[in-house]
Every structure is written in structure tokens, then in C-alpha cells.
């Protein structure tokens, strides 16, 4: 399995396409290049939004592209620690997902909001509850320990 994100492999050498952390992410209204199922495309960036785990780039046409598919994405890619996600944020995400599912939306429509949000929710839930023994799970345990300590007070 190739674990190198697409963004690294497709980075072009022109000065305009090379980005650094300092000018990343691109601004709204900027034309961005990204990898789609049909190859490389460009479109206007409408908004950059943090999901439960990674950043999503929302395009003018409504498509939602995960950050690692955007050309010039700095490496390593920025991720949120699971302990940064609040209970309220998680619950709101769960409600949105159930609402989209209830409305008959199909998550198998690539780059659409249901697809994007379900991807992130599954990734987040996996990281949160996966078996102990890694640093990531340790972060979650630290969070719970803090909560339990607060409860005891």
C-alpha cells in the first residue's frame, strides 16, 4: 500500500504551485488544483473547513475535497487530535449524518457532503475506540482521565 499522500506525489515544481505552511491553506476564491476520480482538476475554493480529523476544501460547485488531495498540501498533513473534538461537535456530526441518511442521501456519491462527512466520522470513531497500545489511543485515555478527575472534584 502506498502511504505517501497524493499531494506529495503530484507536487509540481512551478513556483506558483509550491506552497509552504506559511501560505497554506489557500484563500477563498483562489483557483486550486486537486486530484479527482478522473484525474487532475481545477476549481474555485469556496471554503476550508475542519472536519473531525482533517480539513476539507469545499469548492464553488459544492464538491468536498479532503486536504490530502489538494496540490501543494504541506507534509506531514495537519490532523486534529481526537481530544480536540468536543462532545457537542461529535454529537452534531452524528445528528447531521443520521439526518442525511434519513433524507435518502447516498454516501457513495464521491466528493459530496455525505461521503465526506461519513469518511471523517468513521476515521474519527476508529481512532477514538481502536484497541489500546498506541499513542493516539493514549491521547483519548488522557482525555477520559481528565474528565474522570473533573467528575471526582
Amino acid at each position, binding site marked *: 500500500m502506498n502511504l505517501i499522500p497524493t499531494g506529495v506525489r503530484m507536487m509540481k515544481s512551478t513556483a506558483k504551485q509550491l506552497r509552504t505552511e506559511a501560505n497554506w491553506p489557500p484563500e477563498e476564491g483562489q483557483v486550486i488544483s486537486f486530484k479527482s476520480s478522473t484525474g487532475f482538476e481545477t476549481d474555485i475554493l469556496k471554503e476550508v473547513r475542519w472536519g473531525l*480529523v482533517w480539513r476539507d476544501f469545499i469548492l464553488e460547485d459544492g464538491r468536498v475535497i479532503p486536504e490530502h488531495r489538494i496540490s501543494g498540501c504541506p507534509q506531514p498533513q495537519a490532523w486534529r487530535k481526537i481530544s480536540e473534538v468536543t462532545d457537542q461537535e461529535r454529537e452534531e456530526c452524528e445528528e447531521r449524518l443520521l439526518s442525511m441518511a434519513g433524507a435518502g442521501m447516498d454516501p457513495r456519491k464521491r466528493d459530496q457532503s455525505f461521503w465526506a462527512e461519513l469518511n471523517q466520522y468513521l*476515521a474519527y470513531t476508529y481512532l477514538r475506540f481502536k484497541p489500546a497500545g498506541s499513542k493516539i489511543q493514549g491521547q483519548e485515555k488522557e482525555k477520559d482521565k481528565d474528565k474522570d478527575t473533573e467528575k471526582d472534584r
Partner: protein
Amino acid sequence: MSQSDDEPDELQVWRVLSEAGLVEIRLDEFAERIKDVKRIVTGRLRDLLDFNTGVQERESAAYSLGTLTGLELKVLAHTPKPPDPSKI
């Protein structure tokens, strides 16, 4: 699963999610990935119940399990049925 203590968190997250097939789920694998994650949550919930600890995490895990089950049912409802062999 091998991992290095020196590996930055960002790379570790990427590797863990890639290995689990959860960075970008293939369109025909949603139901399977939901099942995988449900299995992980169920295992954690079982541990929490066995040791009778982490009340808040237990409630949260149970709620996540309910959400995943709801999503799984909807995704399965959208899954195209294989052609009926008797009609081929």
C-alpha cells in the same frame, strides 16, 4: 501493526487510517468499513463494561454504536442488489 515511537503523530495517524482503509473509503466498501468500525467500538464497549469503568466513554461508545448501526442500515438499503440468477 508495526509502529515507531519516533514517528510523528501526524504520520502515525495517516498510517493507522490508511491501514484500516479509512482515509478515503472506496464507494463499494462503505458497508464493510462501517462494520469494521462497529467491531472496534463494540470491543471497546465490552472492555468498559467488563471493567466497569469510564461511564462517560461507555455512554458515548454506545451512542456511536447506535449511530453506526443506523448508518449501516441506510447504506445497505442503497446497496445495489446482485442480479437474480434465475432471470439471467
